[in-house]
């Protein structure tokens, strides 16, 4: 085989090999059209090499012309492919140059097939056998076709296109590509064009060898592509490494994020692709592999909250603000999860949102806690109001709404003073300021009666417990408010009943005393009557002693007054105590004296002598005069009765008073029988009696009265026999202290 055949075949084979390699590469990576185009270029170069070999071995001019005509097809394909390659690979070259060059090339191809034998020759007259390195090679002899000028123009256009493209790439800074791709195309292209022209015009007589120039182009392009591939591989490796690093970072981030309950997300706005960290996917109930977009996410958001989410996202897209929002997610199993979002938006240079990143966190617990808190607060039997340091309400529950008649919205943010009656407001404000100075859980008002002001203007008696609450907004005070109108009513009713019973007992007791009371009243009446009748008698006589009459009249007046006093005393005792009246300040010694006067005759009847040892200058007590008289009367009557069977000389009652532990004490000591130890506790119980016809109410009523006066009543046995009943009442100064 001749060396020419071997060389041209090798040329073709090399090109074919490259073509097939890059074709396979294209097959594996369909989007890399550059590889396909290069494959076409290499294939065309291989075809050109084959045609050239045939031209060298052509025997007749006709055969030569035909081969040369067909050779133009791969040349055309190669040129068009090169233009495409340049445009695609270098992303350079003016498109009008490209299109016009390709158009002219195609026109040349058409002209090639119209002309005989081809576009280069009008006629091939003969073939000259040339000895070429020991081998014979055919060289055409003939007249050139003037249409080949079109081909020359095409070549010039192509040249311009490639130079232009190369310059652009060079200027872009990609010098290797400019040199290797642009430079080789220009260089070898010029060689090809020159050789073809010189041969056709008969300037030199050599066979066509342009396939080697094409091989050069193919080799240069192939090298560049290989270089690219190698770089790509290197990049891919680097990328792999960096991706691995990224993945690790991402995982670390996710671990860190999940540790604090954060889930990460990112949204490629342009492509509407949503990436969620595993934590976030778990939050939404998505599988780890599911592809996500906004629509998919929108579907799992609770229908009622979609608007909230939409607004937040839209706002983030427009302003880039974080737009925290909380919404519910419906999990695949139907459970509800509360999620909070927060985002950051990235914008491109035109201000369009391209990425949005953010975090999600599970706030279900908090929300449930809040809901539970709200439910608990709402279900609380007391009205609850939380107020901040400025006295503005930050929380109110349902009871508070119903108690004051306001809607929640009308109270939140408003000053608490609106719920305080006008006359207490100034006091309240100073109280609130004082409270924040020394905040601790305690009842408000301390003994004073408190009132709340309702929306309709009415006032309601209330009891308030205050608790300091340290919230994120600072120190607040939580007030639990109890409507005590019912309790007040009940207390009033109980007091009324107590008064009623006390009155009943008093009347009963006065019934017992009626004998001595009648006597008490009859004494002055007797004196009056007798005096008057004496006067009548004196006037009927002859000599009227005026001074005697004057005395009589004076005595009548005195005794009338005395009778009036007795009646007054009785009337007071018979009076029904007013419910809820205010206690007056009383001198306990005065009460003892009053009762002694009342009982004077009864004591005479019972032959009981009374001794008193009353302390002087005792502080006043607050109380109801009549009821305290009743207590003492009751104790003294009991004492008299206890001594009914005693010897006359033993019937002595001792009444003492004094101060004891800040209270005023009164004791009634008799010399009757002692009270058995086991009965000591029971004597004040209602219906407990040792008397044959007693109701057992006297002492229990005394007990009630003393308790209502915030005092104590008790009994002790005397060492020398008999019992002593004591009662003590808080002294006024102390009672006042309690009141403030």
């Amino acid at each position: 085989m001749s060396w020419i055949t071997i060389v041209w075949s090798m040329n073709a084979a090399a090109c074919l090999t490259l073509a097939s390699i890059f074709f396979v590469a294209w097959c594996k990576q369909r989007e890399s059209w550059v590889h396909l185009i290069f494959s076409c270029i290499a294939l065309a170069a291989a075809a050109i090499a084959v045609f050239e070999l045939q031209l060298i071995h052509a025997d007749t001019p006709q055969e030569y012309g035909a081969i040369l005509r067909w050779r133009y097809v791969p040349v055309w394909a190669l040129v068009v492919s090169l233009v495409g390659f340049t445009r695609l690979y270098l992303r350079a070259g003016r498109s009008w140059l490209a299109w016009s060059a390709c158009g002219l090339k195609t026109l040349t191809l058409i002209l090639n097939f119209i002309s005989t034998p081809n576009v280069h020759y009008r006629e091939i007259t003969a073939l000259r056998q040339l000895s070429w390195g020991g081998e014979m090679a055919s060289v055409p002899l003939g007249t050139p076709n003037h249409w080949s000028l079109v081909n020359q123009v095409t070549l010039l256009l192509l040249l311009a296109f490639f130079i232009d493209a190369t310059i652009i790439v060079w200027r872009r800074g990609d010098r290797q590509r400019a040199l290797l791709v642009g430079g080789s195309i220009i260089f070898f292209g010029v060689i090809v064009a020159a050789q073809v022209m010189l041969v056709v015009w008969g300037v030199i007589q050599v066979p066509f060898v342009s396939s080697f120039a094409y091989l050069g182009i193919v080799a240069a392009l192939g090298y560049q592509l290989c270089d690219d591939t190698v770089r790509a591989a290197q990049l891919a490796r680097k990328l792999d490494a960096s991706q691995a690093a990224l993945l690790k970072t991402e995982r670390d981030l996710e671990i860190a994020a999940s540790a604090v309950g954060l889930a990460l997300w990112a949204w490629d706005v342009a492509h509407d692709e949503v990436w969620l960290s595993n934590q976030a996917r778990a939050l939404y109930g998505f599988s780890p592999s599911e592809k996500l977009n906004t629509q998919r996410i929108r579907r799992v958001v609770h229908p009622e909250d979609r608007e909230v989410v939409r607004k937040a996202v839209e706002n983030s897209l427009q302003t880039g603000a974080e737009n925290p929002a909380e919404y519910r997610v419906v999990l695949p199993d139907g459970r509800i999860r509360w999620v909070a979002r927060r985002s950051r938006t990235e914008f491109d240079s035109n201000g369009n949102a391209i990425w949005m990143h953010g975090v999600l966190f599970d706030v279900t617990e908090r929300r449930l806690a809040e809901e539970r808190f709200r439910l608990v607060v709402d279900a609380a039997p007391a009205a609850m109001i939380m107020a901040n340091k400025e006295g503005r309400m930050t929380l109110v529950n349902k009871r508070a709404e119903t108690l004051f008649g306001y809607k929640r919205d009308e109270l939140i943010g408003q000053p608490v003073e609106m719920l305080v009656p006008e006359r207490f407001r100034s006091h309240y404000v100073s109280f609130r300021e004082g409270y924040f100075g020394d905040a601790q859980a305690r009842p408000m008002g301390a003994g004073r009666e408190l009132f709340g002001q309702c929306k309709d203007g009415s006032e309601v008696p209330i009891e308030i417990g205050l608790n300091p609450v340290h919230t994120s907004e600072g120190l607040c005070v939580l007030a639990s408010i109890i409507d005590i109108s019912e309790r007040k009513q009940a207390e009033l009713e109980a007091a009324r009943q107590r008064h009623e019973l006390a009155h009943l007992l008093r009347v009963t007791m006065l019934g017992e005393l009626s004998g001595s009371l009648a006597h008490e009243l009859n004494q002055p009446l007797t004196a009056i009557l007798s005096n008057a009748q004496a006067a009548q008698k004196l006037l009927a006589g002859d000599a009227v002693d005026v001074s005697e009459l004057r005395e009589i009249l004076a005595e009548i007046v005195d005794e009338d007054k005395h009778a009036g006093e007795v009646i007054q005393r009785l009337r007071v005792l018979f009076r029904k105590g007013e419910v809820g009246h205010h206690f007056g300040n009383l001198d306990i010694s005065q009460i003892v004296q009053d009762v002694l006067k009342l009982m004077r005759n009864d004591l005479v009847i019972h032959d009981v002598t009374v001794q008193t040892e009353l302390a002087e200058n005792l502080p006043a007590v607050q109380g109801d005069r009549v009821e305290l008289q009743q207590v003492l009367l009751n104790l003294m009557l009991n004492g008299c009765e206890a001594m009914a069977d005693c010897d006359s000389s033993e019937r002595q009652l001792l009444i003492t008073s004094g101060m004891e532990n800040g209270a005023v004490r009164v004791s009634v000591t008799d010399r009757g029988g002692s009270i058995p130890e086991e009965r000591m506790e029971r004597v004040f119980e209602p219906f407990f009696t040792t008397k044959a016809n007693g109701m057992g109410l006297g002492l229990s009523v005394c007990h009630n009265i003393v308790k209502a006066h915030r005092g104590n009543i008790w009994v002790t046995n005397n060492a020398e026999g008999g019992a002593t009943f004591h009662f003590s009442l808080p002294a006024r100064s102390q009672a006042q202290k309690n009141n403030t």
Partner: protein
Amino acid sequence: MAVPPSPTVFVVDDEAPVRRALSRMLRANRFAVATFASSKEFLGQYDPDASGCLVLDIMMPGNGLELQRVLQKKGCTLPIIFLTGYGDVSKSVQALKGGAIDFLTKPVNDQSLLRAVRAAIEKNRVTRQEQTQVSEICSRLATLTPRERQVLEHIVSGELNKQIAGHLGITQRTVKAHRARLMAKMKVDSVAKLVCLANRCGITGSSS
């Protein structure tokens, strides 16, 4: 024998205005009045020969009924008029049983009280008169010899001379002599009168 003092109304009441008023009213009606604040005071100045009556408040320190008992024990003949603030049945019964002349409720009308006081004074006068008579008879009795007294007792028992002589172991003549002397000493002229006097002095007859 002491000259009986003029009847006095003794008023005992613990209340001075009442005492004064009652005293005034009684004095206006020409009664002598003495007032006392308590039983104790009255007993301290008690004169057994006093005549008149006692106006006593039942309800006073020392208790009116108690005073009544004490006076009774002392043989006081002063009739008692009780005054009371209100009618206590058991007390009034007790008082009347104890010999009270009346039981009046306060305020007492002057007529009621005066009527009671008058009645009481009259009663006291009669009692005192009777007491005087009895003491005179008793003094006559005291002049009798033991034998004459024995005879008197038998006469009061309604025995005949013969029976008396039999009982005493003396003759009928001796009995008759004693009897004559006895009648003279007692200043009576008939056996019926003698028996009456003896009865008043508590001699009811021989037990034998």
